[in-house]
Every structure is written in structure tokens, then in C-alpha cells.
């Protein structure tokens, strides 16, 4: 502060400048710090299980394991006669 008390002196100027810089940095940083990264969630309806052991799927398992698995698989459950 100068002699007349109205204008900023050198020390007061840098102190004021430093204070405002910290305030601006805090304002910029705070939204980033407050917001946590979250994985995209499309909702329960879109992430629910769609796989089901349909006859189609059972046939796939049966034919792919035909050398060995078909002996172990129950014909009634696999749809074979």
C-alpha cells in the first residue's frame, strides 16, 4: 500500500495476485475432484441375462461334444430320441 493508502504496493499486489490464482485453480480443480469416473450403465433391462439353454443351444452342445459327451448326456434332456 502506498503512502496515500489507495493503491496497492508491490508486496500487496503479489499477495493479491497469489490469492486470486489459488482461488481460480481451486475453482477449476474442484469439479474434477468431486466427480468420480463411473462406468456406463445402460440400465438393468439391457444388462440382464439373455442366455438361456434353449433346444437350439442344447443341440449345439450335443453336436460339439458328440464324440464323448453324447454318451454322458441324457437323451431326454437333449431332445434326442
Amino acid at each position: 500500500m502506498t503512502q496515500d493508502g489507495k493503491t496497492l504496493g508491490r508486496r500487496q499486489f503479489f499477495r493479491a495476485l497469489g490469492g486470486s490464482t489459488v482461488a481460480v485453480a481451486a475453482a477449476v480443480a474442484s469439479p474434477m475432484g468431486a466427480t468420480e469416473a463411473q462406468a456406463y450403465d445402460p440400465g438393468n433391462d439391457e444388462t440382464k441375462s439373455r442366455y438361456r439353454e434353449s433346444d437350439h443351444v442344447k443341440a449345439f452342445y450335443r453336436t460339439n461334444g458328440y464324440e464323448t459327451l453324447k454318451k454322458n448326456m441324457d437323451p431326454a434332456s437333449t431332445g434326442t430320441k
Partner: protein
Amino acid sequence: MARMKFLCDADRCIECNACVTACKNEHEVPWGINRRRVVTLNDGKPGERSVSMACMHCTDAPCAAVCPVNCFYTTADAVVLHSKDICIGCGYCFYACPFGAPQYPRVGNFGSRGKMDKCTYCSGGPEPDFSTAEYEKYGSNRLAEGKLPLCAEMCSTKALLAGDGEMIAEIYKQRVIKRGYGSGAWGWKTAYRETVAI
């Protein structure tokens, strides 16, 4: 809860690329993008092996870990999917993926490649099942129809297995027992040569 997995029996794969063709046709995948491809090791030499590769739907997916916009999600069937509406095409997932699964419609730098595209395990995307938007962005949703990925269903030598992880592991285990030896194309011995005792 069943966990969806792919398993390629390298002793049966004959590199016919039917899985690649089936995938492209089923989902109308555009030129330049292959959601699945066949990798051949020691091509033309004794001991040649081929493995059909696509997104392996990792449990702790590295693509999801590096995505800056968090567009990935995992379904209850353990299938890793992503939202093309959120994807910015940065390419980080391509660098993170150990299988080279993420693909882009254009060649370019950060953000100019277009939306990432990858195997969806034939289970569509975040849009409603069987909707036009889902088909245009991600392809058909066979899992919701009670079917399995077409690549595996089309495999003529039954090398590519898909479905419940426990079930296909059991099928492969039975094959190995019957043959008396494992694949040899992958596994501890292949990764670490003779320095590992198994």
C-alpha cells in the same frame, strides 16, 4: 449364472475363415472391419496351427479400464459391450486389448477413426432388443433369440466353441482326454517353453 466364453480348439481349426465370413454377413460389418479373424502360427511349416480370434469378453477387461469416457459395460452373461453413442474413437482400447479386438471404420489419428466396433457375442448393444438402431450399430442379437454366436455355430470342424464357459470347458476337456494331449498352440508350455514345469 452362466458366463459366456469362446474357446478355439486349435487341433480342429483348418483356417477356412467361415467364422469370419459368417460374422461379417450376420452383422453386415462394413469393409475394413473384422470382428473376428483367424491367426495362423508357423504358416506352411510342420506343426502349423490356426486360432480363430475375436473379443474374448475378459472378466477384468483392459479396454474398459483405459476407456476415458467409460463406454464399456458388462452384462449379466459376462459379455463385454460398449455404447457407440458414448465412444469418441480415441483408440485407447485398441492399444490395451491383448487380442486386437477393437476395430475402427477409418484410418486416422485420435478421434478421427470413427466409433469403435468389436464382437458383441451376437448380443447387440444398449439399444432395445431387436430394434433397428441396435442392428445398425451392433448387428443382430442372437443371444436374445435363444441362440449362440453364429461364428461358432457355423464352424464346420467344430473347432470354435461358444456358450456357457463350464459347458464348453467340459466339451474341450473330454476331447483332450480322448486325444491324450492338449492343444500345443497355447498354454503354459507354449508361453514359457521348457522353463516351466507342469
